[in-house]
């Protein structure tokens, strides 16, 4: 079987987001990057799939210059090599642009039997990229995958839908978008981290890819980007004896519609 390609996104870690409570403006400047949480499970899923099939895992990302740190991290999780479409436009690309870039890079990489994506990115969670790659490459897409197995040239997957599980099969090559529960994402150990730093990375510039006019212009426009801040009502019930206070509390909770 030929390579398993896993796509991952380098996102801003939410821990250090600052939200201005009056304007709701979001300050990302203090946030560090990280591999999108669900994509870590995807990388491991790709590793397991390729190990079972005796092929190699290859990691692929579209990101701006600061994605460089991501590549080491991704490579310490198992892939043998990484490809990086390095362009600043990644910072505000939508699913359309990202899928165009990744599909074009996948064509460059050449041989592949399976493409694994996370179900959605930890920042936008738009569910766009995987299905669009499938459409661009004209291969089957299986989304919401919680289990998968490869037998020869056939992929068997279990999809987790709202109230049911669906078993599906497809011929390879195919795209799967996986849920985090497909498998845990182990934290890489010392040797894996050291090896990750030594594995090869191939960098593509946008000009290196065969793209058509319009492929790099987004289809959606972000009109505004605001934080969400919870303001407390600061109601203090401290008058009267215990019974009166409980009654007041229950009344207040009813008024708020929580009871």
């Amino acid at each position: 079987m030929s390579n398993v390609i896993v796509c991952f996104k380098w996102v801003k870690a939410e821990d250090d987001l600052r939200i201005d409570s009056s304007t709701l403006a979001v300050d990302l400047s203090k946030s560090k990057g990280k591999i999108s949480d669900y994509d870590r499970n995807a990388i491991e899923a790709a590793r397991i799939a390729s190990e079972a099939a005796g092929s190699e895992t290859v990691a692929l990302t579209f990101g701006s210059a600061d994605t460089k740190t991501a590549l080491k991290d991704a490579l310490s999780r198992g892939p043998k090599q990484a490809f990086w479409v390095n362009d600043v436009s990644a910072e505000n690309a939508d699913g359309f642009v990202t899928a165009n870039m990744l599909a074009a890079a996948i064509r460059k990489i050449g041989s592949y039997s399976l493409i694994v994506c996370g179900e959605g990115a930890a920042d936008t969670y738009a569910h766009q990229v995987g299905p669009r790659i499938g459409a661009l490459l004209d291969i089957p897409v299986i989304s919401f995958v919680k289990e998968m197995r490869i037998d020869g040239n056939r992929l068997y997957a279990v999809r987790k839908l709202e109230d049911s599980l669906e078993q599906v099969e497809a011929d390879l090559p195919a795209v799967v978008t996986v849920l985090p529960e497909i498998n845990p994402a182990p934290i890489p150990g010392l040797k894996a981290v050291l090896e990750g730093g030594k594995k090869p990375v191939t960098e593509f510039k946008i000009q290196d890819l065969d793209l058509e006019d319009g492929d790099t212009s987004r289809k959606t426009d972000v009109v505004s980007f605001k934080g969400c801040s919870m303001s407390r009502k600061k109601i203090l019930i401290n008058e009267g004896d215990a019974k009166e206070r409980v009654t007041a509390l229950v009344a207040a909770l009813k008024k708020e519609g929580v009871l």
Partner: protein
Amino acid sequence: MSGEDKFDVIIIGAGPAGTACAYTLAKEGKNVLVIERGVTAGSKNVTGGRFYTYALDLVEPGLWKDATLERKVTHEQIMMMDGNQSITIDYSNPLFNKEGEMPQSFTILRAVFDEWFASKAEEQGAVIACGIKVDGLIEENGRITGVKAGGDEMFADLVIAADGVNSMIAREAGLVPELSDKTIGVGVKEIIELPAKTIEERFHLKPGEGASLLMLGCTEGIHGGGFLYTNNESISLGCVFTPSEAAAHGRQVHDIFQDLKMHPSIYPLIEGGKTVEYGAHLVREEGYRGIPKQLYRDGLMVIGEAAGFVLNIGYTIRGIDLAIVSGVAAARAVISGSNPGPAYLEELKNIKLLPSMKAVDGYFDLLEIHRLYETYPKVAGGVFNKMYSISGETPVSIKKGIWGVLKDNKVSLWQLVKDGIRGYRSI
């Protein structure tokens, strides 16, 4: 043991000690691996926040110019508190910050500083593996030959423990005994964000200038004190206590810290700010006499606070600069090619670390005087109270006033003389 799994030196911990050592070794072409358990260097490190610049110059002349430092310290302040009253001494001397020369000291934020410093060591060729905790040492025939981390083993000609105050590695190697709760302090600290302009107004600073403020008498008589450092757009505020005393006193460290924040002389400095980080950490309190007898054994050396290199002497805490200096000393010992253990001790002397710590050793005795943390701030407050209380009544003479205050605080002349002599001797 394949070549892949073997380094010249493995350093445990990417704090200032480990990174300074790695930088110096890598620059000389040594194959160095630094293992850090934090996701990035500095991500979990807690410090007060003041750094003496000379140490970076020892690593590489001029390196400080490139460092992510906050404000150069232009104002040294000591505040004595008693209840709601306070006395502040503010010392400033332009000689510490001469135009065009390296400023003596900066305030810093460790998460930023440590990460910057580690990236510099990486540029020199050191390999820094973050997010990995070293679980133990590998020993063969009495010699330390490597480390264990998770299921992995990694080997080196020399292992250097730079794992900080509560060094598990130095303990495992039998070099450092279990820390005693009498010889360490517990520090709690908040980083409170405020606009640069507000900080400059409140502390009377020009842009880029900073203040360092230490407080006595804010710990309810417990051995300890408070600190405040101005960063570019935040204030580091915290206090350090002897934990056993705090427990005996029946108060939570956190509550005492809360009271400090609300003190009428402190609150206006942080008012309107937003706490963005809260941390707690241990710090050694013993100075020179806390340095372990043995700082190395076959295949292993201990540097930084793991080796007791920290000075907490009341008017300043110095751990970061000493950590860096000890890291450089260890690296020089390795580079010298002679037997690294004894060479390390020699370098520690040459680089003036051991002599500097010894010179202020007496402070430990001074700081042992309990009256320093409650009675004397009270006495000072009382005296100032007498001096500045004008009501139209006939005042008692200052001399009489002082005696009255001493009596109120149950300080005898004998004690005063004794503490005075002890204090004088210790400095």
